[in-house]
């Protein structure tokens, strides 16, 4: 090493200093670029095709924004002034009109005649049939979700003429039409699909995984996995009112603190899905607007698993429900962003609204009394598990629950389970004695929640709750019209049983909050928990 080499070394210092003048803010241009919406998300999109095996939840937003369905839900403004989807209002997206047959066993859709895919080919009933066939044939989650609406086999889908399409129903169900408005039954180009299909991959999932072809409001401009996805507006969209923004850039920013700095500085228009703590703080600071709404049909619950001895006794479960410091949990785990689900006035349900507060409060004396009546009056030990993927609320909630249960002699050890294992042990094998769970049903009817969470063997019944009467009631109500006179009494009975048996002890109904820049309007909250970019617009001055 000679002097020259050393000087080259010191040159590096000079280079480091030289970099500094280039550190200029990009805030100026971001505020000026009126046509582009910039969104920060914390999750990774792993596919552009929802039907493909392994497509993760965050990827559903691609389907929402770039594809059309036959139907969609309208929106309404809730009591707090937030825009939310309206489960009761179905609108046509590719369908111009639809009609249920007099016998109620089929629905005929008239398609919009001028709707075109991005490549200019018209959207026909053949495309609709191919796409729905695909949704029920590929298995996995799409098939399960289609089945919830009684859509199970290709024979149900019939092309009448190029712009008329019919679905034959297996049974009358109130869930069928809403199920056509969830992200799953999206319409792709069958021409492209058939051209790219191979023997091993008859539904061209490998092609659509990276190369979408739809008719939606936005089309794909680029996708850099792990970094960003960019949409450009489809000016020929016929599905609804043209979106306000010509381009949408969605950047994946893993660190929560960074996302918060970005929205507070105004370098992004929307920071999607922020933790309750940030929602509370940003709201207080007023640096951005916090918009959110309770997630319909979703509850954060403490589940007692009925295959384990202490929890077989209903009184033990009730004792636990009385031994939870609800108010503290709500403040410290939910930061007050949620709907309270305790302190119901009576053991008799107030109505059929769901979710509704359970008739439990923090009452350690009552809890001790109940426990004293059982074989476990001296308490017992049990692990309390939660999913590390939901540690934001799971951890503080678990610690407070641990404290509460200790007061009645139940000793818990907290067991954090990594996200990859969670599904297997909690939902598939159902072998966690006491755990936190947060199922939310896409279709917003109480019976749908009960179907997934209170029927033995169903995925989200991680409590292994099994009750013959409940099962019968759920079977009877699941497809029954909600205005059927028999519906309300049956449902009330179901809710009363859920109150009394408490295999699932609700803590609160969570909010999905996002932060938006103050010059942005139109952010809406959806059951699918994904951002709908089509409705976002600049706020009018």
């Amino acid at each position: 090493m000679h002097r020259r080499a050393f000087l080259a070394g010191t040159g590096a210092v000079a280079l480091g200093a030289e970099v500094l003048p280039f550190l200029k803010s990009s805030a100026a241009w971001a505020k000026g670029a009126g046509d582009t919406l910039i969104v920060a998300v914390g999750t990774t999109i792993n596919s552009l095709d929802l039907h493909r095996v392994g497509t993760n939840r965050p990827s559903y937003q691609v389907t929402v924004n770039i594809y059309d369905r036959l139907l969609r839900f309208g929106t309404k403004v809730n009591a707090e002034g937030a825009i939310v989807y309206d489960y009761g209002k179905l609108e046509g997206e590719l369908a111009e009109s639809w009609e249920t047959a007099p016998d109620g066993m089929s629905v005929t859709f008239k398609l919009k005649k001028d709707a075109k895919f991005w490549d200019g080919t018209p959207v026909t009933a053949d495309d609709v049939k191919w796409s729905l066939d695909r949704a029920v044939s590929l298995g996995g989650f799409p098939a399960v979700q289609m089945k919830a609406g009684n859509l199970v086999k290709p024979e149900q889908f019939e092309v009448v003429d190029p712009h008329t399409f019919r679905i034959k129903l297996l049974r009358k169900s109130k869930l069928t039409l809403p199920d056509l408005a969830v992200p799953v039954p999206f319409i792709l180009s069958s021409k492209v699909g058939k051209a790219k299909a191979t023997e091993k991959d008859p539904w061209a999932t490998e092609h659509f995984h990276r190369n979408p072809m739809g008719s939606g409001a936005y089309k794909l401009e680029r996708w850099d996995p792990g970094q960003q996805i960019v949409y450009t507006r489809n000016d020929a969209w016929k599905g609804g009112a043209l979106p306000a923004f010509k381009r949408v850039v969605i950047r994946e920013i893993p660190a929560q603190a960074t996302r918060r700095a970005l929205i507070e500085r105004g370098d992004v228009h929307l920071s999607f899905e922020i933790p309750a703590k940030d929602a509370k703080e940003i709201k207080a600071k007023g640096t951005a607007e916090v918009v959110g709404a309770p997630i319909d049909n979703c509850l954060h619950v403490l589940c007692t698993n009925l295959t384990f001895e202490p929890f077989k006794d209903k009184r033990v479960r009730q004792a636990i429900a009385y031994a939870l410091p609800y108010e503290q949990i709500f403040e410290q785990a939910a930061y007050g962003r949620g709907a309270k689900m305790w302190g119901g006035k009576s053991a008799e349900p107030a109505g059929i609204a769901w979710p509704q507060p359970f008739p439990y409060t923090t009452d350690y004396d009552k809890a001790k009394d109940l426990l004293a009546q059982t074989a476990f009056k001296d308490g017992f030990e049990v692990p309390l598990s939660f999913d590390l993927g939901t540690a934001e609320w799971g951890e503080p909630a678990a610690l407070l629950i641990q404290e509460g249960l200790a007061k009645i002699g139940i000793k818990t050890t907290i067991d954090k389970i990594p996200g990859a294992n969670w599904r297997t042990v909690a939902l598939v094998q159902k072998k966690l004695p006491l755990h936190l769970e947060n199922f939310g049903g896409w279709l917003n009817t109480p019976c749908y929640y009960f179907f997934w969470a209170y029927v033995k063997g169903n995925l989200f019944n991680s409590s292994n709750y099994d009750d013959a009467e409940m099962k019968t009631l759920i079977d009877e109500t699941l497809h029954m019209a909600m205005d059927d006179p028999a519906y309300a009494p049956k449902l009330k009975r179901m809710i009363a049983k859920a109150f009394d048996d408490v295999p699932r002890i609700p803590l609160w109904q969570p909010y999905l909050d996002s932060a938006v820049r103050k010059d942005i309007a139109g952010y809406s909250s959806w059951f699918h928990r994904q951002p709908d970019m089509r409705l976002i617009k600049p706020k009018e001055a």
Partner: protein
Amino acid sequence: MAQASRTGIIVKRALQALPVLAGIVVVTFLLTRALPGDPAAYFAGPSADARSIAEIRKSLGLDRSLPEQLLIYVGQLARGDLGQSISTGQPVMDELIRRLPASLELTLAALALSIGIAIPLGILAATHPDSWIDHLCRMLTTAGVSLPTFFTGLALVYVFYYLLGVAPAPMGRLDIAVLSPPHITGFYTIDALLAGDPATARAAIAQLALPAITLALFTLAPIARMTRGAMLQVLSSEFVRTARAAGLSGRTVLFTYAFRNALLPVITTLGMVFSFALGANVLVEKVFAWPGIGSYAIEALVVSDYAAVQGFVLAMAILFVLLNLVIDIAYTLIDPRVGKDA
């Protein structure tokens, strides 16, 4: 003579690396399978039933026996196919090609920065013991090792981006307004310069600055301390005293005799620091949304994405084999004894 032995070292090292790599292939294969968690259940997604989980297990090839899976994997490797990552849905090879340069660009920039600061600082601290510069060196190194990188990163973001607004938004390798340069090396700064686009290069450097400084602060400490320590030792050794006594100029003594000899331990430390830095990358990548290899590996590990984890470990193993080779060669350049002995 020196030339021949140097080639000899390279060939020998490369050959020694082969069994190591083979071992790594088998061990990572087994380790990933030993991970708790069932990727099939995970990727079946919400509300999947037992049947769809079984379908996915079959399509992932996880229903076969372990030796069978290993054979398939080795066969794929032989064809240069690292498999498909299920979590990102991309071929692992593509991901590594895209992400490794991002991590390397960051790590190398940080190392260049920290060498540029640490070595002069270490030398000055050694030649002026207990002066203010020695104290500065001590302070910097203590701060560097004791501050966790994610904290330094967040603090820098807070001060330079959030409060002062002088740094660009920490949104990855390039600002949203700037398009990425054509892929040649994968280093955005170099690619942009090769494409004759100084504006993009400037934007890339601006994005690189804060994460590189964060990582540089972390790597500064061991290099500065090692330089200082080695210099102090060499400066007090007899041959330096002899050189001084012989009336050689202070400069010649310092750089030709002392520094060259002190450089060997520094180079060794550099190799280690490089590997630390690649590890510390993970946190820096998270804070600055840097699409590097570290965050990719962590995500893959969390969801038991076998192909991605295996690909990552293999890529890292090859990288370290190369790194060690480079260091060995650097030894022969600096220390003539090494070349002759080997």
